[in-house]
């Protein structure tokens, strides 16, 4: 890995390196077990619980948290918020890595991963929302890849190709927003077919809209959250513009997130009202629903607003982390906690430790690849040859 580069001035084995190393070794072992022993050897999946952590976290959370790419590029290129320009490249990079890892993780989860392209080359189940998700994720991964290429091309010095790709920016951005709208919402719509299995408080005809709107919140918060982390660890990789615009980006996005959270809160309440689910609020699941709604939607909405008014940078950062956590909670609620709520507890699912290891393994790979790229390619700084251009 790139430790010699990024941590040259630190001790050779930073705690991060040690933890990452352990996770990588464990992950590799579990990987071997998964592909030699099958799903039964590594997961707690059952006939009642066909989807576990690898779908709930790796797919649903992964895709939601990778929404920063489309949110940022849309803000800058479509809505013309040029002053956030320096945030685009890091966001596109995390988006691309996020989606690549989602696809990577799916290879663990599905029974016959070599057949993953089948829906598009052998036989298409057009009535399936999973088909829609699959098609959009595949296309969007391609779009993100192309959007990301200018950085490596600048790094490698391929000017002609790089300039060609930059010309496509608008087209790719619009395509990216369309595809993101579709698959972010369709991930929620996956559960529409199972009204009898998902708790009424989480099941709603609005599920696709909930997922889309909360993905925007996730995207905005992730940009702030990562920005905070990057500032801490990759300070030396940032150029003047990046450092100057960073605060601006954080406050601008925090304001947007507060506003979108307000909208999300409203439609969540409306969701309860249109299905007349008020009485469920008095149950145990209702309490948990309220924790999600008040603690992870209303609270960050308010905190963001306070932070923006007070120009309080550290509150913005903490709120972003909290909001991201809220998105994780929401996705896990829909896919695991409130799913199969009708079953006796003996039939309920709890992830196997190896499933958790694989999820951590994948996150770790993401962080390491991100670090590798950021320390080499012009992500948080402009390439001197293309100064002030894009």
């Amino acid at each position, binding site marked *: 890995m790139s430790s010699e580069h990024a941590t040259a001035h630190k001790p050779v084995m930073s705690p991060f390196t040690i933890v990452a190393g352990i996770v990588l070794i464990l992950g590799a072992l579990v990987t071997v077990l998964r592909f030699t022993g099958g799903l039964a050897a590594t997961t707690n999946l059952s006939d009642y619980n066909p989807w576990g952590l690898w779908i709930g976290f790796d797919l649903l959370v992964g895709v939601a948290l990778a929404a920063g790419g489309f949110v940022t590029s849309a803000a800058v290129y479509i809505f013309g918020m040029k002053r956030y320009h320096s945030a685009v490249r890091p966001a596109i990079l995390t988006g691309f890595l996020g989606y690549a890892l989602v696809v990577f993780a799916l290879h663990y989860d599905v029974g016959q991963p070599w057949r993953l392209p089948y829906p598009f080359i052998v036989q298409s189940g*057009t009535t399936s929302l999973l088909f829609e998700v699959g*098609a959009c994720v595949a296309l969007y991964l391609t779009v993100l890849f192309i959007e990301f290429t200018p950085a490596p091309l600048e790094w490698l010095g391929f000017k002609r190709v790089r300039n060609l790709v930059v010309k496509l920016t608008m*087209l790719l951005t619009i395509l990216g927003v369309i595809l993101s709208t579709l698959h972010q919402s369709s991930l929620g719509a996956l559960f529409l077919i199972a009204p009898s299995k998902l708790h009424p408080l989480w099941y709603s005809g609005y599920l696709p809209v909930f997922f889309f709107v909360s993905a925007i919140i996730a995207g905005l918060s992730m940009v702030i959250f990562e920005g905070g982390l990057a500032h801490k660890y990759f300070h030396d990789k940032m150029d003047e513009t990046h450092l100057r615009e960073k605060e601006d980006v954080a406050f601008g996005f925090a304001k947007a997130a507060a506003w979108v959270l307000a909208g999300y809160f409203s439609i969540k309440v409306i969701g309860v009202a249109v299905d007349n689910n008020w009485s469920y609020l008095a149950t145990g699941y209702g309490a948990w629903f309220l924790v999600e709604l008040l603690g992870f939607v209303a609270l960050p909405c308010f905190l963001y607003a306070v932070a923006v008014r007070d120009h309080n940078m550290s509150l913005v950062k903490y709120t972003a982390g909290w909001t991201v956590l809220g998105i994780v909670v929401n996705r896990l609620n829909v896919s695991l906690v409130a799913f199969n709520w009708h079953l006796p507890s003996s039939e309920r699912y709890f992830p196997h430790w190896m499933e958790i290891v694989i999820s951590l393994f994948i996150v770790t790979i993401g962080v390491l690849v991100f670090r590798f790229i950021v320390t080499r390619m012009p992500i948080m700084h402009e390439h001197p040859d293309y100064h002030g251009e894009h």
Partner: protein
Amino acid sequence: MEYHFNTLHDFMVYTKGVVYILILAILIGFVAFWSFLNGRDPDRKPE
């Protein structure tokens, strides 16, 4: 085209199949039409 569908599922497989093909056509069509629409725009910046 006269197709008889016995089940809603068959009907949806067929209609959604057509829709997905149309979606592809629409996306390509938009790009083509956009460039036609702006082809003679005097102040068109190269994108």
